[in-house]
């Protein structure tokens, strides 16, 4: 399909941040993706590049991930006081968490691309990828970035965010790829059901947050 022949979409608030301002655009996109994903993703631009989506998910994913690691560090530090043993050397645990915090932006980027790649492969198989990889990536990036901030809630935030990201991704793929809900659900949920490796980057942060 010749995308250039289609009328340009209005775009998410984040895609119009030069007019709206950085934080108003971020909050508008966050609210839209989490609470009104259908109209939000319907307005998402299809062929404006992936730079905006990468920046959005890296920023929010890093903030959420680092806060999640901070909760884990707090639990580790309070373990002896609260009467339980984390089962590993405290200093070694803190070093590991510190390294994860430094690597968090890279982990977020890798997670977004690998997940989007697997989801788009499944989307092609289910006939739900007619508008190309760019659209799939942007749906995954905005869904993951928006739900990553839920990790500010200790223990359950990461798990709730993971499930919410799946729901938002299905709705986003339905609207942005202009496909049926069933095909979009197949594209998003098949990797979860069949291959948990692609979620390993999300799991790293969930594990760290939940102290598993």
């Amino acid at each position, binding site marked *: 399909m010749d995308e250039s022949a289609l009328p340009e979409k209005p775009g998410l608030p984040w895609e119009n941040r030069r007019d709206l301002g950085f934080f108003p655009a971020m909050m508008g996109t966050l609210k839209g993706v989490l609470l009104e994903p259908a109209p939000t993703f319907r307005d998402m631009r299809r*062929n404006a*590049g992936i730079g905006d989506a990468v920046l959005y998910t890296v920023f929010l994913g890093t903030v959420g991930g680092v806060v999640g690691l901070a909760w884990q560090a707090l639990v580790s530090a309070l373990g002896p006081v609260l009467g339980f043993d984390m089962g590993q050397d405290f200093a070694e645990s803190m070093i*590991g968490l510190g*390294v994860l915090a430094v690597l968090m932006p890279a982990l977020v980027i890798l997670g977004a691309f690998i997940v989007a790649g697997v989801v788009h492969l499944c989307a092609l*198989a289910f006939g739900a990828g007619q508008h190309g990889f760019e659209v799939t990536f942007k749906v995954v990036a905005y869904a993951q970035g928006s739900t990553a901030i839920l990790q500010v809630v200790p223990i359950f935030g990461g798990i709730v965010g993971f499930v919410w990201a799946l729901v938002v991704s299905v709705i986003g793929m339905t609207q942005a790829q202009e496909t049926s809900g069933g095909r979009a659900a197949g594209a998003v949920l098949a990797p979860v059901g069949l291959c948990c*490796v*692609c979620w390993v980057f999300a799991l790293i942060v969930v594990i760290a947050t939940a102290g598993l």
Partner: protein
Amino acid sequence: MLRPVGPGELDHERIWTAVFFLAVGVAIALPSQIWERLFCPFKLVVGLPCPGCGTTRMVLALLAGEPSIALSLNPLATVAALGWGVFAAYGTVVAMGRLPRVRLEGSPRVWHQRAAMMVLGLVGVNWIYLIAAGA
């Protein structure tokens, strides 16, 4: 056919080459205690390996220069990782040399669907191997 990247077109060579080198860097930088804490939720619940089981051990084997061990842990993931490396080498050359890219033009959408289903079929065959091998 060979042609330059069109206006507004995603530069897949640059993107996936950059992601490849980022993945290698992260794999090297992650401390062993993080790798050791990764587990397979599918295997924990169902008792069978998931299609991706063995991938983290495969990555560590490849980084240690043991491709034969990597292949035994997860053949499809090993081939995919090595193939990604070959693509990254091609991507580096065409991006730095500003050379035209390989593009499959005019292929019907149904071919994309069939190719994707073939890849998923290979994932299924690989999964059967992992279950039989007791991964």
